[in-house]
């Protein structure tokens, strides 16, 4: 083991850009042995990029990583190197094979478990670690992972990373490890982590639960916009100062927010749904002509809520009976949006095929006219709308997806964080367009992970753990309030210990293992 509080890794000016987007800009950081390092930051602050680089799954665009034991190790630093240096990582997305047993999954991660009696060894190793970290876990090493609840899978994933086979573990990176664990099990993990750190291990903990970070880390790094903005001992922070540090102090916004439309409570809401995990009576509502923002940390149920609206689910009895035409602007262009074999024009027209059909056939002239109209209206930069959609830059592809939604007869436009990774010029053009269309009576439901975009909204719902935790209108919308609501209960007067047990999968399999 290394000496306590000596640097295990020194990160020197490490940056990462994806095309024009700078995800991480020149980060300097020392990761010390025998210290728990907490990292906090809002969406897009660069936390995930930083740990991917440390884990060797992504190559930095520049900078150096220096290891105490072996000197500089860049470039050519990859997963196997990270493993050789004793770095283990538990990512947010689970990486177990669902068709294998718990013990077999341990074997996949640790090639050293082999030969005669490997299964017994794998069983023993993973069971011992599970017993050590999560006493009373109730997981049998012969259980198939696919049969386990999400929480138990998370426990297996964590225990698997902590399992020592032949080389020592120096650094454990945990990205939102407690997101699907209940309070008691989360506490078990944090206690174990403390023990690991006290014995000289290093650890990085990322969590959106500020209490957890404050309680379990020795030092806290605050990230914003791809850089480190604060780096101090944990005892120097409290909730308030953390939230403050995460917010953008630089931008002194003049409070000349456009006068938000007052809600016409007497009229009927166009959209009114109760999110899946909502336990109180709050509903996501939108009235005609409104721009409604869905805020909060990414992955906390906003997209699901949009899809529910789109598929007309969970309407219960409220909301108008008639179905209103809707269109969705996807956020992840490659996965949810673009048809890669088609031209720009065909990618736009697919949203309005029915209006362009005459006598069963899509009218080519009308099709071309619609494309040209929108090329001008939304300024898609291309010589020819018949060019392949992939010939456009990311921002212009996104514009084409906007055009698809706006060109349709949809009265409600759902936007799934569509401006991610789009340049600022395009953004301004699209904001303008949205306001214009809202003025013409269209309704927008806008999930966004960017604080700035919230100022275009008339009404904002902040999501956490799949439920609405704050409901802000007009002047109430401030960055501080959104941050407070996103990170923890308290600011909006909720229960302090509620980590959203309703978000957990029911452990239906409990009785069957015996």
């Amino acid at each position, binding site marked *: 083991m290394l000496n306590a509080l000596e640097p295990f890794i020194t990160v020197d000016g490490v940056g990462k850009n994806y095309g024009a987007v700078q995800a991480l800009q020149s980060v300097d950081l020392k990761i010390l042995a025998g210290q728990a390092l907490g990292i906090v930051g809002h969406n897009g602050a660069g936390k995930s990029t930083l740990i991917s680089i440390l884990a060797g799954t992504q190559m930095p665009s520049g900078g150096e990583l220096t290891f105490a034991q072996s000197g500089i190790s860049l470039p050519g630093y990859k997963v196997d190197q990270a493993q050789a240096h004793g770095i283990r990582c538990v990512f947010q997305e689970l990486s177990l*094979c*669902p*068709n*294998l047993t718990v013990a077999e999954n341990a074997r*996949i991660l640790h090639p050293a478990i082999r030969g005669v009696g490997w299964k017994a060894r794998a069983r023993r190793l993973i069971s011992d670690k599970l017993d050590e970290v999560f006493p009373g876990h109730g997981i049998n090493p012969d259980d198939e992972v696919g049969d386990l609840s999400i929480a138990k899978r998370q426990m297996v994933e964590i225990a698997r990373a902590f399992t020592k086979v032949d080389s020592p573990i120096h650094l454990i990176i945990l990205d939102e490890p407690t997101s699907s664990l209940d309070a008691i099990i989360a506490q078990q993990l944090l206690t174990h982590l403390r023990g690991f750190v006290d014995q000289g291990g290093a650890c990085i903990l990322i969590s959106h639960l500020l209490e957890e970070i404050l309680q379990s880390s020795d030092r806290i790094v605050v990230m914003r916009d791809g850089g480190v903005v604060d780096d101090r001992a944990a005892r120097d922070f409290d909730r308030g100062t953390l939230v403050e540090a995460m917010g953008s102090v630089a931008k002194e916004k003049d409070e000349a927010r456009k006068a938000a439309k007052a809600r016409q409570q007497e009229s009927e809401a166009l959209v009114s749904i109760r999110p899946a995990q909502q336990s109180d009576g709050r509903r996501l509502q939108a009235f005609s002509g409104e721009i409604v923002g869905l805020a909060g940390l990414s992955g906390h149920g906003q997209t699901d809520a949009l899809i529910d609206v789109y598929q007309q689910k969970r309407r219960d009895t409220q909301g108008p009976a008639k179905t209103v035409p809707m269109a969705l602007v996807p956020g992840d262009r490659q996965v949810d949006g673009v048809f890669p074999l088609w031209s720009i024009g065909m990618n736009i027209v697919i949203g309005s095929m029915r209006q362009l059909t005459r006598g069963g056939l899509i009218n080519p002239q009308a099709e071309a006219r619609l494309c040209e109209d929108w090329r001008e209206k939304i300024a898609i930069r291309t010589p020819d709308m018949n060019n392949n959609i992939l010939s456009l830059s990311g921002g212009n592809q996104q514009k084409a997806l906007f055009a698809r939604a706006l060109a349709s007869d949809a009265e409600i436009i759902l936007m799934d964080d569509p401006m991610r990774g789009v340049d600022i010029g395009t953004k301004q053009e699209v904001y303008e367009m949205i306001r214009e269309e809202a003025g013409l009576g269209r309704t927008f439901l806008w999930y966004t992970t960017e604080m700035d975009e919230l100022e275009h909204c008339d009404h904002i719902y902040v999501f956490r753990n799949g439920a609405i935790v704050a409901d802000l209108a007009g002047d109430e919308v401030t960055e501080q309030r959104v941050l407070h609501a996103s990170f923890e209960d308290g600011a909006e007067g909720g229960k302090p210990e509620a980590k959203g047990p309703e978000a957990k999968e029911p452990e239906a399999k409990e009785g069957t293992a015996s």
Partner: protein
Amino acid sequence: MTFVPSARLLRSLLPAFSLTVILIAIFYLQPRAMSYFGLNLLLNLALPIAFATLAQMCVIAVNDLDLGIGAFVGFVACVGATWLNESPVLGVAVLALCILAYAALGALIHLRNLPSIVVTLGMSFFWLGLALLVLPTPGGKAPEWVRAVMTFKAPGMPTTIYASAMVAILVHFALMRSAYGAVVRGVGGNPRSVERAGWSILKAKMSMYALAGFFGVLSGISLIGLTTSADANIALRYTLLSIAGVILGGGEFVGGRISPVGAVLGAMTLTLAASFLSFLRISPDWQIGAQGAILIIVLALRVLINRAGKK
């Protein structure tokens, strides 16, 4: 506390259950089948089908499908009844080459990211063509030793039962209990995470295809041991039978969930289904139809079990 069987357990018992049901039905209809001779007759062709099913299972384990296995088994049978008999060295060399060809097929499908259905369907014509070149008209003669092995009369129970049990257990240990078996099945379950842990997917796929080729060879050789002569078209229906066998045996098409023991039981069930129908005096016209119906019923039962398991 009452014991509530899990959906997984129920599903793993399904193959044995189907086999038992069909055996009981046969014994009920035809009590004379409950004898050494009767069972031997009923299960005569089970072994080659079981091998073909295991071959298919290896391919399904890595999320592919082999539509050429029947033609391949036919080709092996033709080689077995000609070259293997006349000049054993050449015969063995050709069969070894076949296994290598299967490994290469796996590499091609993985590297070029090709749909296995189309490639293996094309290969089925390749194998059929080769088989016709080796043996243009039905005939040939199985090597004596193959015949001797396949017609060996074991004490107590028909040899097929011993052999099937042995093969099932061997393959079970190779794929379900070995350290590398876990990796190979992991490739079917979550290739990305297996790759991230530093394993080669190409190697895993090639191993499974080679294993499929190996079982295909065993299927063809054991088949001619029973029929004594060969024919290029002899095993074409094995393609469909083998897929049905894997599914009856509890295997899934994607996700690396396979069961060697189940696959062997599934193959036996399918073999018995044919006899069962003839005992029922249902015209042989409905034989393949009944196989389809059994397949659909088993799949439907699975959906029901899964639904019940979710509640």
